[in-house]
């Protein structure tokens, strides 16, 4: 064994994101089909750009309830019948709303694509929103809110958007709504919202799997192609995404008896269309918080043993974005862990070594074929980019840009965003640990 030399790695062939066959349906909706050999479960995504600001202010979460009840009964079938039609053909249907839009996703064996498309059309065009199904999903969402508040990770995320975004911005509140706004939602609200906003006007369809693109076009055109527009959607106003203007801030959520403190630290980050290109940002995410050898875990996990592991990275969304680092640490080292986290992140301004640059570039570039190996991964990426108004060539382009990335480019990208005001949220035993964190002097500390 020891006589065998460590093998050299042969560089992979250049790779680009799978090319779709792009066509247009008879109703004007663009269709992208990704033929993925060997992928016998197709992923269908119907993407409807729909900023969460279109919801009435006193019904926030309405789009989420609509997304969850579109398949709970239609003009032709009861909720239970519709579930039987889906599951009888092995179709998994899910729908969700993000800040940018609504996505309906179906996973189905490639042989059952047609019934999946027919049922997708039925729930998009003729949902009935029965009172009992809407009120059931409202009750479930109200219960989910309690669960989100009780879990340290989701609690930290909720407090973080509240602390980071300006209260005027929709992004400061959960997309799926709060107790007061969700509790007010009724079936009539769902019907009105659906009629006004769930239209094909800006929609796109993405399908990936071991499929013949021409046959898929014919099937989609005969189904989703008949989804008709009802004219211009009502104009929307409202602020989607605006950070507060002020200096560093710390919020400590008191969760009595916590044996760990959940940490979420973040600040403003770039959109995908940032000047200079997107390529530096996934590399920075990997080097700062993407592995046990990354800057944060090298100290907090592998040296100190304070944590099971931190994650960090840039999260682009529409015209803006954020950088977020998060993880949990042993309760009694809350303050030293925060101090070390701060020092690690400040230390990044000193730059990266050539070895770090190369490893980050190679990791991001060379894992791409594996990350996008399955039909659902390809469709997920295409759908996420579609909500941002981008095509999948975006991935190919930034992967190609990686080859020209220098340590200076990384340093400049970090410098551009790394000095933004920081928002730190801690969820843990504030009585025991808040004073020690306050003493670090890392911004105004509020206990909630």
């Amino acid at each position, binding site marked *: *064994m*020891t*006589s*065998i030399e*460590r093998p*050299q*790695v*042969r*560089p992979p062939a250049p*790779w680009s994101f799978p090319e779709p066959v792009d066509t247009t349906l008879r109703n004007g909706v663009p269709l992208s089909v990704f033929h993925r*050999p*060997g992928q016998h*479960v197709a992923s269908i995504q119907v993407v409807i750009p729909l900023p969460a600001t279109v919801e009435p202010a006193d019904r926030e979460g309405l789009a989420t309830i609509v997304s969850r009840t579109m398949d709970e009964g239609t003009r032709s079938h009861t909720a*239970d019948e519709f*579930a039987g039609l889906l*599951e*009888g*053909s*092995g179709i998994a249907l899910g729908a969700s709303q993000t800040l940018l839009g609504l996505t309906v996703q179906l*996973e*189905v064996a490639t*042989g059952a694509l047609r019934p999946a498309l027919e049922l997708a059309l039925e729930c998009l065009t003729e949902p009935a929103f029965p009172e009992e199904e809407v009120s*059931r999903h409202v*009750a*479930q969402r109200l*219960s989910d809110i*309690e669960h989100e*508040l*009780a*879990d*340290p*990770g989701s609690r930290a995320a909720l407090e973080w958007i509240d602390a980071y975004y300006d209260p005027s911005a929709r992004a400061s509140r959960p997309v799926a709504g709060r*107790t007061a706004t969700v509790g007010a939602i009724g079936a009539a609200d769902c019907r009105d919202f659906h009629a006004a906003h769930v239209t094909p006007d800006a929609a796109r369809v993405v399908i990936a799997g071991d499929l013949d693109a021409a046959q898929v076009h014919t099937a989609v055109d005969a189904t989703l192609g008949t989804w008709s527009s009802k004219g211009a959607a009502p104009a929307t106003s409202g602020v989607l995404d605006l950070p507060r203007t002020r200096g560093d801030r710390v919020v400590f959520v008191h969760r009595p*008896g*916590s*044996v*760990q403190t959940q940490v979420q630290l973040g600040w403003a980050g770039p959109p995908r269309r940032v000047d200079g290109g997107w390529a530096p940002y996934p590399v920075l995410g990997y080097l700062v918080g993407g592995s*046990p*050898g990354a800057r944060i875990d090298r100290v907090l996990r*592998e*040296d*100190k*043993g*304070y944590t*099971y*592991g931190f994650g960090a990275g840039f999260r682009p969304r529409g015209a803006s974005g954020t950088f977020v680092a998060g993880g*949990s*640490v*042993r309760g009694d080292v809350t303050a030293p862990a925060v101090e070390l986290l701060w020092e690690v992140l400040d230390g990044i301004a000193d730059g990266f070594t050539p070895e770090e640059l190369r*490893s980050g570039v*190679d*990791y991001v*570039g*060379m*894992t791409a*074929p*594996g990350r996008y*190996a399955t*039909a*659902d991964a390809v469709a997920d990426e295409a759908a996420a980019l579609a909500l941002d108004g981008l095509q999948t060539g975006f991935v190919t382009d930034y992967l190609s840009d990686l080859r020209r990335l220098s340590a200076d480019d990384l340093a400049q990208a970090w410098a551009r965003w790394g000095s933004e005001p920081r928002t730190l949220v801690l969820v843990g035993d504030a009585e025991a640990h808040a004073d020690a964190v306050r003493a670090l002097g890392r911004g105004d500390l509020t206990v909630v």
Partner: protein
Amino acid sequence: MPLDYQVETRTLPNGLRVVVSPDHNVPTVAVNLWVAVGSRHEAVGRTGFAHLFEHLMFQGSRNVAEGEHFSRLQAAGARLNATTWFDRTNYFEVVPTGALDLALWMEADRHGFLLDAVNQGNLDNQRDVVKEEKRQRYDNRPYGNALPDIYAAVFPEGHPYYHSTIGSMDDLDAGSLEDVRSFFAAHYRPSNTVLTLCGDVSVEAGFDAAATYFGGLPTLDRPPVPPSAPLDPLTAPVRVERLEEVPSDRVYTAFRLPGDRTEDYLACELAMDLLAGMATSRLYRRVVRRERLADHVFRSAFGLAGGVSLGMLGADVAQGHSVAELESAVHEELRALAASPPTEEEMQVLRAGATRDVLQAFASTQERADFISQYTLLHDDPTYVNTHLEELLAVTPEQIRQAAARYLQPDNAATVVYRRTDSVKDEA
């Protein structure tokens, strides 16, 4: 559709079982190793040790520096990890084809020569990391210790599946360097390991590479750990009640299932799906949709190799309803399934769902490799990847009824209830 993945096997002279399953659709190879050691092999007073040991496998070996396993493979485009479970520990990476040799070289180094690099500092550090993993995943979240509660309710004290893989803080504290050495000597050897390569590699190239890098690992003939005796269903109901700061009352109804890789186990899996796995499932229709006693229902079945498996139904009680109402409805549905088999319509749903789930799992070479390693190591059946779906589809309605009658009844259930204290309610 019948599956026909090419699956070839070879055993090296030192006992390592190698499986190669070519798939050239993507320029990557899934490298997947299963070692027949898990929490069920842990000694009294050393619960959690198999998992702690797994962490040490990333801390360097004879020719690999501390931290280098992750950093070097990731820099070559690998995505990698490892997990520990009752019966086994697995180590895996998906690598670009050109990094296959490096991955095998690094795996062979730690699977053969870990002990050259283990030291007290690594052990102490990873012990701390694992204790934070336990706090994060079990101790500091609602329902976090439900699974350990279920294991202890379903299996008798002293049974290999009685304790969880994460173990106890005291036992983690007690682990020593001497334990690391003896654990490695007892369990880590080629004849106790399966290596599967799935992806962009030919059969001969795969076998050659396995022989090149693993062929030099020493042959260690030790008798395998004998399997534990099969365990019948519980003969009387077991009940555990917890009063905790949880957001909803939650009821788990858990059962001893037959051992994995048996017809009865497949029938139980389908019975659990029929009860709670889908939107047309009996419990979903009744307690979520119709009577609204529960906000959610869910189910899991863990197929295990030691003569008994674990299945559970779970449900969160809806506001305004009680644990007792929900339990009573669950018990009625369990009895109803024992009394009459699923309808043809229900069978169609089960078969269509099973087909999609299996095809979707095998869409990923990593999951396919993991499945092949599992059934090669624990059941000596490398081609189960091709027959598993057929066998699921062949299960009859009557087999499901019989399985429900024997394994999934209120009288042989372990019920674990988490009830909320008022404090969470007031805070929210």
